């Protein structure tokens, strides 16, 4: 870990202003990802701005019947919120499928969205990794890639985004709200939040430098049956090999996002008209253009099969 300075702020505006002042600064929310990465010198911020006490820890109704989730709401509180459980079950289930009770107590909504990949080579600073050190190469492509991406990846990087929560939010068409140091706010649909790696896998989101996430807005409830199925070798406390977040309607239509397969939660709205035709047709369209490795091509079959299971569950 590199030495760093530390500052605690009390309002979102103060946070955004503070970060503009300090080159190489980062926000610290729950710290469950950032601190680990700092200990391994994968992240080396010179300054930490602790946003743990800036408020933004409430879940409130929006004018058009949706919910606004503060950036600092913990994963535990979000999963347990009665309105979330009732109207956005897929999100609650996705959260509870992630990490452990202790981690979810600390982990925040914004921190979860911005957690970094779990590619094992990213975690070992002796290995080349374009995401960690741009231009150094990618050790994973010819290495061990069982968990890594099969779609949306590039020749520079095949990492996945590890969040479960974000997969649920993707199916729900959530919108991320931010503020920048100049005080300007904006809304980014979650489908626009993450960038694909291309040649620049170190650039992971479309957030501007120093932009603070203030909340995530869920649209008014859409009803339907909410399912989150996370597939992994052990029953708990493991990242998804594949996960499926689904909202399925009586008429056979649905919204489905997939985790564990791409650098971002994977959703292809154009493919969803095929959901009524069954898992095979839908998965084929959804995963069109997939470029798996030898190690992870099982994920293509797994995606189809998990969707099949989820569609069956939706009917029963």
């Amino acid at each position, binding site marked *: 870990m590199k030495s760093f300075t530390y500052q605690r702020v009390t309002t979102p505006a103060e946070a955004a202003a503070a970060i503009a002042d300090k080159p190489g600064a980062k926000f610290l929310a729950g710290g469950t990802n950032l601190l680990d990465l700092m200990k391994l010198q994968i992240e080396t911020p010179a300054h930490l701005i602790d946003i743990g006490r800036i408020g933004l820890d409430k879940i409130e109704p929006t004018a058009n019947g949706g919910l606004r989730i503060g950036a600092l709401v913990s994963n535990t509180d979000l999963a347990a919120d009665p309105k979330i459980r009732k109207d956005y079950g897929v999100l609650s289930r996705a959260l509870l499928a992630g990490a452990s009770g202790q981690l979810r107590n600390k982990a925040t909504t914004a921190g979860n969205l911005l957690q970094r990949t779990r590619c094992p080579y990213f975690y070992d600073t002796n290995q080349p990794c374009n995401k960690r050190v741009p231009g150094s190469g990618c050790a994973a492509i010819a290495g061990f890639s069982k968990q890594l991406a099969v779609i949306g990846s590039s020749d520079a990087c095949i990492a996945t985004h590890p969040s479960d929560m974000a997969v649920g939010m993707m199916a729900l068409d959530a919108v991320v709200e931010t503020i920048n140091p100049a005080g300007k706010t904006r809304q980014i649909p979650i489908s626009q939040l993450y960038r694909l790696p291309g040649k620049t896998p170190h650039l992971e989101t479309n957030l501007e430098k120093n932009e603070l996430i203030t909340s995530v807005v869920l649209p008014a409830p859409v009803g339907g049956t909410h399912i989150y199925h996370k597939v992994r070798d052990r029953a708990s406390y493991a990242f998804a090999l594949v996960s499926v977040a689904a909202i399925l309607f009586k008429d056979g239509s649905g919204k489905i996002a997939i985790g564990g397969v791409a650098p971002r939660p994977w959703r292809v709205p154009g493919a969803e008209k095929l959901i009524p035709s069954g898992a095979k047709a839908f998965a084929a369209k959804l995963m069109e253009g997939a470029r798996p490795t030898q190690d992870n091509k099982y994920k293509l079959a797994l995606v189809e099969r998990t969707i099949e*299971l989820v569609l069956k569950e939706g009917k029963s």
Partner: protein
Amino acid sequence: MKFDKPAGQNPIDQLKVVGKPTDRIEGPLKTTGTAKYAYEYNEQVTNPAYGYILGAAIARGTITRIDQTAAKAAPGVLAIVTAANAGPLQTGKFYVSRFLAGPQVDHYHQAVAIVVAETFEQARSAAALLKVEYKKQAGDYDLEASKGSAQPPNPGPYTPPGETLIGDFEGAFKAAEVKIDQTYSTPDQAHAMMEPHATIAKWDGDKLTCWCTIQQLNWGIRDLGVILGIPKENVRLISAYIGGGFGGKGTVLSDLVAASLAARAAGRPVKLTLQRPLMFNNTIHRPKTIQRIRIGAKQDGTITAIGHESWSGNLPGGMTESTIASTRLLYAGANRLTRLRLAVLHLVEGSAMRAPGEASGMMALEIAMDEMAEKLQMDPVDFRIKNDTQEDPEKPGRKFSTRKLVECLREGADKFGWERRNAKPGIIREGDWLIGMGVAAAMRGAPITKSAARVRLDSSGKITVETDMTDIGTGSYTIIAQTAAEMMGVGIDQVQVKLGDSSFPESSGSGGQWGAASSTSGVYAACMKLREAVAGKLGFDVEKAQFSDGRITVGDRSAALADAAKNGELVAEDTMTYGELSKEYAQDTFGAHFVEVGVNAFTYEIRVRRMLAVCHAGRILNPKAARSQVIGAMTMGVGAALMEEMVVDKKVGFFVNHDLAGYEVPVHADIPHQEVILLEDIDPTMSPMKAKGIGELGIVGVAAAVANAVYNATGIRVRDYPVTLDKLLRAV
């Protein structure tokens, strides 16, 4: 005391304290966080500096330059130790690893430098400032590829012969009516214990004291002495509590060497713990194996030929994974072959992990037995029973001291509801889940070894036991207290047990499943002497004396034990040593594992639903501790079956998933209801305790039982562990 003929009746047979499911006597210390682990001796060492190891960034090659400028100038740095200033270092007598690279790098994450600073954070941060330049050299990391160059191992105390041949294996196999010839593999596995390797090292002149995490303190002082080139008398090691070992803390590893060197360099005591990634690529592990098994049988299921060939790899001079150990003894069959081959690999050293050899060997053999039973259209339980033997199949006439494998299988089948298993795979379904059952036999040697203890009786009638035995979470404290209480006729609350200090009499240590049987026998010997001393002091005939309720009694004369120590503590010390009974008898432990799994018909996720182990393992000294050992081992077996694998990057030459996020071990949600049945067994050929070990038996066979259950559920046979859903999907 020398034990050279089968034990007769003795004080242990009273079973007033021994054999009872006593709670751990040190339990309250652990649940209140007051049991002291190596890194926590803050009162004894008040001014420690902190050491941090920088591991090699390459797998093989040479260090050409280390630029220390920035690191030396970093805040708080007190010293930097590298091969250039460490002085000469030897290798120990058990592990072959060199604990400091330079100029040669032997494996990834081999220690290149130890940075010592005022705080842990300063040491870690300065370590990252070291600029190390390497010249890479090609290495061999792929057992498959190096299999062809593998050689017969050099026989050693822990290595069976490279080749055993009984009868005419090839001829009999060729002629067999029914046969299988299959190849299996088991991956590199990590001990992944909770407590990392840790040491506080403190020099007083040329005397070295280390608080550390070592299972075998006697090996530890020997090895640390050899490595540092100092007499072992100058080394004192203290490991009072150990947060899990599983063989991964057998003797000196890099933390001890690094802390000792760092403390010398800094002129201050040094605390050092291995960061989790170093535990995978810097210590030891259970090495990968490739195993070919051939079994031939008559149509009625009688095995006529059994062959087991096995390949593993290691650093030059390292041990061979002796997978064939159980195959030599488990089933009858006139024609037999075992063969071990060892390749040179430039991965970190492979060595002992819980039931070394047997655990990986039985992962393969017990799938092969399942395949063979199916081919014979026999029930796998019946097939195993049919081929039971009551004598060593390689040495007819040499009997097993005790062996109830058949009873384990029968009792287990009965209690588990084995008759509900459908012999045809892929038939039973509950909702979205395919259900299957599997069985495997278990067998593990019951070694017993020399062990000493000292016992003290004080004027209040309290007994204190001192021995350098360790408790790695197994219950040593408790069974030793039970033994002393039984021998001296006092309540267990009158016994204090002091372990884990190399200045105490030399015990067996914890390893090889020999700890419980050996260390309690040492305490037995010392207590016999103390009984004599008490009797002598108070004028009783020890042969006729009864020791009970804190008193010594002959006929109607009786005195309190405390009276014998009125004028000063009585101290007795003895060592239990052994004659030739282990040559005369095959001394082993046996068991049977039954497992039911569900496999999701869509995703092929595998979840264990029920587990049962039936064990036959000598006198059970404490059924509660024994059960804990077995359920822990069953859990570890589930890990071996379904998830544990250190993945080798064959280009770079290292284990990639070197943390607990990447190296998965079972969590609570993976482990269903587990049941353990301990069959009655008293083995007088072992020692006066008539006990054997059980902690390693519990893991042997588990993984195969799980794999066999997955086959029964799905009809898909996976022969390369771990059995994961991607492998099942590939076969669908």
